[in-house]
């Protein structure tokens, strides 16, 4: 039983990271109808920036905040420079853009910080959480920061004017323009936020997977699995999907014979395929209620 609880809690902790990645992917998907394959690399680059800041002697939380700000601006810049001009281009052109972005960020990180694996600090420590052997303080911190982030985002989208404008721009762009919303900037803002959310995920998972240019590869695939499972049209679904995938991954690794650590990743891919076959809209994918 203790093994089970332990695995579930650990699953929730990594699931929190998948939830963040899934949320970042869904935000951009809602805004421009494309999957951002480079979301993980953007997060990785942000994490390297925070590491660099700490190398220069800036304390953890200051580096954390500065990195969020830089990632936000960077996300906006990527949208303005690369994807705004591609807005009316065919799907494949956009896909090529995302792959280019992936490759550029990945190799730039390798060039600047090289490909050796680096230790990344945790501000929470890794002692047992509240004296319990079930979960470490860092895992508890991952869950805590994610929950704060999700509450903040919920408040932002539900109760602020700009959140309302962003939702409107994503749901009916033409009507949004007709009430005076600058939809183009709302998309850029979505990119900035997605980039910052990814940065949080990267900085939280780095102590676990260690810092290197390919650190987010697996995490992003789990994030995609979570987004597909929850439904690409539902931010709420993406978050739930993230936690489910995290728990599922751990339980499968523990209890299904022969899966172990090596076969965890194919499980995520199998999950994506099964969801697409059985319930293409995902668990919480929007089915719009409409009367004609």
């Amino acid at each position: 039983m203790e093994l089970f609880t332990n695995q579930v809690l650990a699953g929730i902790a990594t699931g929190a990271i998948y939830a963040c990645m899934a949320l970042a992917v869904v935000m951009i998907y809602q805004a421009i109808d494309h999957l951002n394959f480079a979301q993980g690399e953007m997060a990785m680059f942000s994490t390297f920036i925070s590491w660099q800041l700490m190398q220069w002697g800036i304390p953890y939380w200051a580096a954390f905040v500065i990195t969020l700000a830089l990632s936000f601006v960077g996300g906006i810049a990527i949208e303005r420079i690369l994807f705004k001009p591609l807005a009316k281009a065919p799907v494949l052109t956009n896909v090529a853009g995302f792959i280019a972005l992936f490759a550029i960020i990945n190799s730039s990180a390798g060039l600047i910080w090289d490909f050796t694996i680096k230790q990344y600090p945790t501000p929470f420590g890794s002692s047992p959480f509240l004296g319990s052997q079930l979960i470490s303080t860092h895992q508890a911190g991952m869950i805590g920061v994610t929950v704060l982030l999700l509450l903040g985002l919920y408040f932002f989208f539900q109760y602020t004017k700009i959140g309302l404008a962003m939702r409107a721009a994503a749901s009916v762009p033409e009507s949004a323009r007709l009430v005076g919303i600058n939809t183009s900037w709302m998309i850029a803002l979505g990119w900035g936020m997605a980039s910052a959310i990814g940065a949080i995920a990267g900085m939280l998972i780095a102590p676990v997977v260690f810092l290197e240019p390919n650190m987010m590869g697996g995490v992003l695939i789990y994030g995609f699995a979570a987004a597909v499972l929850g439904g690409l049209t539902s931010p709420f679904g993406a978050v739930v999907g993230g936690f489910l995938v995290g728990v599922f991954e751990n339980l499968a690794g523990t209890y299904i014979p022969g899966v172990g650590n090596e076969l965890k990743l194919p499980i995520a891919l199998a999950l994506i395929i099964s969801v697409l076959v059985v319930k293409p809209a995902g668990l919480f994918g929007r089915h719009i209620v409409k009367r004609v």
Partner: protein
Amino acid sequence: MTTLLNVKDLRAYYGQVQALHGLSFSLSEGSLTTLLGANGAGKTTTLRAICNMVRSTGGIEFDGKPLNNRSTESIVRFGIAHVPQGRGTFTTMTVEENLQLGAITRKDSAGIVSDIERMYAHFPVLKQRHTQQAGTLSGGEQQMLAVARALMLRPRLMLLDEPSFGLAPLVVRDLFGILGKINREDKVSILVVEQNAQLALELADQAYVIETGRIVMSGNAKDIANNEEIRKSYLGY
């Protein structure tokens, strides 16, 4: 009366296809003007050109200021509210959020709150459903919501594209009654595009008839309604 909207030699294009061929008309402040014409005559295109949602050349002046080359979202800030064909409802959002969106360019929070109450007084059915997803409203209710959303801007000019489309005759009467009231009491100038010529002419004070992208007839709405020849050849009733 002063001219609020002045359109001169308007030509609009969808790709290579020209939809408007030098269309000119004007609308005086406080008036309720209707643009009539058959399907494909260019009525919707005219409204879309005013809000720069279609490529066009020619002069469009609002209150003496040129609107050409301004983005759709900045034209709204002049006080022009456009209710598009198909109503443009934010179907996944609540009725109240739809109304808030109508006022999203306004800064006066207190005024917005009181205007939402005013809309609920105009359209009681919206108050009953204010927390409901707007997509679940009936066609008529959605049209009321679209008009209310436009009014939330406190517009000087409201552009309405086929408000009667798909609505039951009684609902249309109701809606047109409300439009007349808004025009008289709130001093909102209205430009309404309609296929239901008979009803539009009853409501309007000024009318223009469009055929294949050109104005072919203009004048007092009563005169046009009383002219049997025009009615038969252009309006089909």
